[in-house]
């Protein structure tokens, strides 16, 4: 298989190396494939919502549950998630005319046999931007399309910036932008929506009611290799080949996807109830699962670095609601860079990862995960354990133990208590929090949990999303990322998600540079990313904690399993080598 495993840096040396694909040498059993059923598990504690349309859904489970239908995604990508030709549609960007031209392939059809049209491409923006839409996917970035803002406000019924030169039933749609950005070249960018809607099929349903309609929930249609046979609400979907599919024909007779709770998934896989879990870029299985399943017979483990990471962030300022900007305050408790760096050096993330990560997790050395192989700076050092350095940094900055106290006080001699925010989680994760607190105590920092214990996720973000808060000085969060690596939504000076309010001129400059004219040049863009990573590490405003593998065991009867993003015919490529799951 095309082992694309990326992490070779020292910090990741203890990580396991998993192939992205399971290169099954056994011969395909034609009849087993044709008559058999591929059983996939969706790992989730709740039933899936059942919204087949990625434009309306906002969760991973639905995406997994309806994945064999191809998700109605428009473009093929390469391993760096860059849009390439050959998919349902091709995209052509014209920087001068500020347009993106989307051309649908001739033989593209919905699973009910009707052709895919330009209107389908246009309509998705109507759904997305509609004032009454329940979709959470709309963002102000879309207002870069001419007329989108007016449509979103409701002052216009149509989006003037989307044209269909050959009419609604033609195959070409053109998007007119106010400004072009390099991120448009990548799937998952926030300007061009990578999915379509079956206009003819759903046009009668008011957009506000779309998410609860039969067309979306019970009998949705798709453009992918499989068509939906049945959906058991919240529990399972079953699929069979879609004869209208334009690409490689699906081979397996039936695919079923079932929701299995996190608690049960190991046992379910061990008892061979499923071939594998439904693939997901964020990864469904964790490190404990890996430990439990790594010796399981009859399966092969595959994986790729996940699109996500966990991080420590410091509370450095506030969000000015008037100007819509993040502002750093120099009098914040954590404003001292030495203090932040010392706290990071005090941590034994490597040790923790080794013990609990089981090779599936390793210390994050930067804020760009290795999944973005091109931008990821594998040489970055990050913050390995270095108690001595931590102590020195603190001493230098004047954080000293005074009056025989066991804790350090701040440079002014005032008592220093640092509040650490963390979300309730599994026993292992909470054990890790404890370990971190102990590490900080070792360097004499009095770090305590905000409100005495890890808090529930909602309360956690409730606190953080306030424009200004003083309850958490440092916290541990996690992001799962879009396949487009721009950082403006997370760390930009206007980003509301920049909850630590880290906003320096340099940071703003670098982030802007990722998407400005210079970035059309891939090399320059890569350089900018690396520069930014270095800068972020040096400032220690936000520091990566861990990266992880999105891994899964695949039953040895499955053939053609390849997780690479470039494998655009993922479901079509699957076959079975035996009719029985064992």
């Amino acid at each position, binding site marked *: 298989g095309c082992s694309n495993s990326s992490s070779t840096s020292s910090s990741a040396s203890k990580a396991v190396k998993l192939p992205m694909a399971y290169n099954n040498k056994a011969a395909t059993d034609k009849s087993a494939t044709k008559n058999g*059923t591929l059983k996939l598990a969706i790992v989730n*504690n*709740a*039933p899936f*919502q*059942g*919204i087949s349309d990625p434009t*309306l859904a*906002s969760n991973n489970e639905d995406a997994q549950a309806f994945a064999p239908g191809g998700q109605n995604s428009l473009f093929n990508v390469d391993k760096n998630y860059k849009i390439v030709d050959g998919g349902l549609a091709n995209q052509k960007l014209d920087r001068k005319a500020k347009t993106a031209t989307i051309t649908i392939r001739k033989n593209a059809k919905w699973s009910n046999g009707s052709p895919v049209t330009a209107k389908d491409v246009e309509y998705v923006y109507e759904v997305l931007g509609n*004032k*009454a839409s*329940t979709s*959470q*996917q*709309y*963002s*102000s*970035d879309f207002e870069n399309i001419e007329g989108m803002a007016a449509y979103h406000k409701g002052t216009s019924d149509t989006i003037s910036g989307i044209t269909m030169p050959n009419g609604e039933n033609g195959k070409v749609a053109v998007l007119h932008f106010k400004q072009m950005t390099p991120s448009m070249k990548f799937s*998952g960018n*926030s300007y061009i929506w990578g999915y379509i809607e079956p206009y003819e099929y759903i046009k009668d349903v008011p957009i506000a009611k779309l*998410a*609860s309609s039969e067309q979306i*929930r019970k009998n949705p249609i798709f453009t992918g290799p499989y068509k939906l046979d*049945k959906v*058991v*609400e*919240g*529990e*399972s*979907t*079953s699929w069979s080949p879609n004869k209208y599919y334009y690409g490689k024909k699906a081979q397996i007779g*039936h695919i*079923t*996807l*079932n*929701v*299995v*709770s996190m608690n*049960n998934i190991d*046992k*379910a896989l*061990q*008892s061979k109830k499923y071939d594998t879990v439904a693939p997901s870029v964020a990864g469904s299985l964790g490190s404990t699962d890996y430990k439990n399943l790594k010796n399981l017979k009859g399966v092969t483990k595959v994986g790729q670095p996940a699109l996500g990471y966990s991080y420590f962030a410091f509370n450095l300022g506030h969000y000015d609601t008037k100007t819509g900007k993040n502002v750093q305050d120099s009098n914040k408790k954590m404003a001292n860079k030495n203090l932040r760096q010392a706290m990071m050096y005090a941590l034994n993330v490597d040790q923790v990862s080794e013990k609990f990560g089981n090779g599936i997790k390793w210390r994050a050395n930067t804020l760009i995960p290795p999944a973005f192989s091109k931008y990821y700076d594998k040489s970055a050092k990050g913050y390995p354990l270095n108690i001595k350095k931590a102590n020195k940094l603190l001493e230098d900055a004047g954080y000293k133990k005074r009056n025989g106290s066991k804790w350090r006080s701040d440079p002014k001699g005032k008592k220093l208590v640092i509040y650490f925010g963390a979300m309730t989680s599994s026993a292992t994760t909470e054990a890790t929090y404890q370990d971190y607190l102990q590490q900080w105590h070792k360097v004499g920092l009095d770090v305590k949990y905000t409100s005495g214990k890890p808090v*529930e*996720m*909602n*309360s956690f*973000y*409730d606190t953080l*999303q306030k424009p200004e808060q003083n309850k958490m000085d440092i916290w541990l969060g996690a*992001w*799962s*990322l*879009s396949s487009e690596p721009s950082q403006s*939504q*997370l760390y930009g000076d206007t980003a*509301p*998600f920049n909850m630590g309010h880290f906003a320096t001129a340099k940071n703003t400059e670098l982030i802007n540079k990722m998407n400005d004219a210079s970035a059309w040049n891939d090399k320059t863009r890569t350089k900018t990313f690396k520069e930014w990573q270095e800068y972020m590490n040096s400032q220690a405003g936000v520091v990566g904690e861990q990266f992880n593998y999105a891994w899964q065991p695949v039953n040895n009867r499955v053939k053609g399993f390849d997780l690479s993003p470039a494998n655009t015919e993922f479901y079509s490529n699957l076959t079975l080598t035996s009719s029985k799951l064992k």
Partner: protein
Amino acid sequence: MWKTILRRILIMIPEVIILSILVFLLAKAMPGDPFTGSINPKADPAQLHHLMKMNGLYDPWYQQYWNWVVHLFHGNLGNSYQYQEPVTRLIGSRAVNTLWLALFTTILTYCFALPMGMYAAKHEGKLPDSIIRIYTYVTYCIPFFVILVIGVWIFGYVLGWFPTTGSISSTAASGLPSIGSRFYHILLPGVLGALFGTVNVVQYLRSEVIDAKRSDYVRTARSKGVPEKDIYKHHIFRNSLLPIAAFAGYSITGLLNGSLFTETVFSYPGMGLLFINSISYRDYTVITALVLIYGILNLLGTLLSDIILSIVDPRIRIQ
């Protein structure tokens, strides 16, 4: 009697109103909002605010409550934020699962409990009685979910006899196979729930039968020359089963309570699991609706018990 039932239902109304306000306020008091959970770089906070506003989540609570009540009178409990579909439909589909399981558990409970209770009482103080009593004590003391967890482990995984998640197999064809598959899925949770639920019924029935055994009318029956077998059949069991029949209504409360655990352990998509999920998603509309529904079901349970009792027991006739 109909009048009394009607009156009881009318009395329920203020209770339901108070509960609805209470739940409404409590739900709103929970930290976070339905969109906190969607925090990810792909979501634009502006859009989330837009959605919050669109759903009136920034209105004062009484305004929200009033809107909710107005909708309620149109048979509309609002939309689930998480599931993006009407709460009525969402709960409707989950309720079916919960009710199936509850019904099955109830039936099994009585199937287990009646013979046990009677047998224990008939052989009061003897070995079988002691065994049954120890059984009830032990099940009384073990937390319900421990029974479930151990049951799943043994019968679901180790022996692999029963499915461990879901309510129906994805491959089951409609018609008979689908009913069969549903049944197969509720078998294990039903049995485990029943094993747990028997405790109360067994103890209650046992003491009822023992009381009946010593009653004067049983002595009268003996003096009529009624054989022992028939005395049990016509007098003792009949008389002690009546209050048990009424117990069925009250047991709804226990079943609903148990559904939170059963459905969590078995990932069984019913109302209990929905509730647990909705809590972490702050799906206000669903939380409010579920608490209300559970409350109303509890009320109906007690009403049902009273009605059953008044039907079966000639001494109690509610006018």
